């Protein structure tokens, strides 16, 4: 299965979680240990190896935070 | 002699700065003083910063706009940056040191630093940071006591929030201790 890579422009994230609802692999979460310049817990992915690069997260992000690549 | 206290409360939208002001105004009114409460309003508040001007006085209140504050209460960094210069010489600035990393630059005012977020979390109610700060404020200024404030709490938040009273009582007490 194709694997992918997502990168977040962390400081534009508003922690809304829409990307989370869209991820088929459930690998996105809000990083509670971090507050970005806007004052939000930004979205992040840890198990990047599980990302299939489907782009759903980016489709749902209202703030154009996410870039998706496929390896 | 004539007593007048002009305060600016400022912070993030979510930090409850508008209700801090309302509680002080309400308590002042109950004590028989003239009061005014003026909020910032508009779409730019969306997720952004909020602030309000409160005046408590035993004289007729002129402009509800606080141009030279006796006291400034700032709950986040942008608010300190914006309002530091609005305090009159000799006035007080109460800073939420949990979220504000810098110190007050002016030397002609008295600055106090309270880590109200931590303190609130410690007494088991992270949301009550504003109540902790209010505790510190009334202790600092002395024209309102704990009971005035808690009486106002119910009026401002409504009967159904009464159950939260004990928690907030604790928060206020902690604040008073901080400023003690």
């Amino acid at each position, binding site marked *: 299965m194709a694997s992918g890579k997502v990168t977040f422009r962390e400081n534009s994230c508003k922690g809304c979680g829409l990307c989370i609802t869209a991820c088929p692999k459930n690998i996105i979460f809000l990083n509670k240990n971090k507050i970005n310049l806007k004052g939000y817990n930004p979205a992040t992915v840890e198990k990047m190896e599980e990302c299939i690069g489907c782009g759903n997260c980016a489709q749902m992000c209202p703030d154009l935070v996410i870039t998706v690549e496929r390896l | 002699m004539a007593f007048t206290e002009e305060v600016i409360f400022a912070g993030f939208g979510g930090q409850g700065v508008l209700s801090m002001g*309302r509680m002080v105004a*309400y308590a002042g009114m109950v004590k028989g003083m003239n009061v005014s409460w003026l*909020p910032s*309003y*508009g779409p730019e508040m969306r997720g952004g910063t909020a602030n309000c001007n409160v005046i408590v006085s035993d004289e*007729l209140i002129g*402009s*509800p706009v606080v*141009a030279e504050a006796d006291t400034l209460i700032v709950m986040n960094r942008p608010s300190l940056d914006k309002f530091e210069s609005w305090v009159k010489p000799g006035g007080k600035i109460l800073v939420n040191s949990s979220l504000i990393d810098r110190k007050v630059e002016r030397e002609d005012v008295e600055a106090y630093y309270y880590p109200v977020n931590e303190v609130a979390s410690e007494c088991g109610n992270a949301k009550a940071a504003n109540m902790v700060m209010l505790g510190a404020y009334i202790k600092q200024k002395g024209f309102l006591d704990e009971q005035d404030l808690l009486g106002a709490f119910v*009026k401002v938040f409504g009967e159904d929030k009464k159950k939260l009273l004990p928690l907030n009582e604790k928060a206020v007490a902690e604040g008073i201790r901080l400023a003690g």
Partner: protein
Amino acid sequence: MAKLLMKGNEAVGAAAIKAGCKYFFGYPITPQNELPEYMARELPKNGGTFLQAESEIGAINMVYGASGAGARVMTSSSSPGIALKQEGISYLCGAELPCVIVNMSRTSPGLGGIQPAQGDYFMATRGGGNGDYYTPVFAPASIQETVDLVMEAFNVADAYRTPVVILGDGMIGQMMESVEFKEPDKRSLPQKDWAVQPHRVPGDKKLINSLYIKPEEMEPHIQKLFRKYDVIKEKEVRYEKYNCDGADIVAVAYGTVSRIVRNAIKKLESEGIRLGLIRPITLWPFPFEAFNEISPETKAFLTVEMSAGQMIDDVKIANAGRLPVEFYGRLGGVVPKPVEIVDKVKEILGGAK
């Protein structure tokens, strides 16, 4: 009744309901939203009806319908929304329908901004709509006065069969102060026998109308309106004069700005300068009589507005060339600071000396 801490917009609603207002037709706009929202919550509990119209034009025409049926009715908006109501207000005046129209005004022209301003003085006092008419305009300076004037507005509206405008600004709408609700004064009001009744009065056809196609009928109609306006000018003028005798300068300001002038008066006192204040409470009819006696010490009038200078026209007419008429204004939602007025006063005196 105990004191309450109330927001201006909600206080307007509470006062209206206390005054027997049973219908409210509105449309959302900042900074007056808490008023329709309050009415939506409270009117049903008081046997009334709140209806959000499709637009300000829809709302003012619903007011026309409800007022024509004899009901006490209110609408509210803010500057651009009030501009849209001008034709409707002209119709209400032509058909002599009582109602109360609230304008919590904001800065304009155009979409402008949403912060407080007084740029709608002309629209309110000169009739921004078509033709020959006026509406009484009340300009409160505190929440308590807002409450009192709103109640009075319904009486004046019914007494003279005219729309009455409450001209506030974003500050009046948004701020909280303590208020007491006194019983609305019961001035004896005429029966609304001109209105369409719950059932037809046999042999007495009611008509709510502003059309008089024949000049020989339209002229007397307008003359009738202006005889009414003369009575209003004679009986309903309201203003406050403060600190005027012996004043070096007399400021003229209404609404929230008048409170800022009061701060300036205090500051100037300490410097031995006496600033007086004429505060029109009715902007129309304008309190020309307040300008009759001026102390010999007074060197100028200073009109202070949150506008580019509108009330100053009436001040000039009142002054009739006797003294210099100076102006200080802030725009765009900027609220003048007391010190700015202090400085302006000193500048004038400096100039005058």
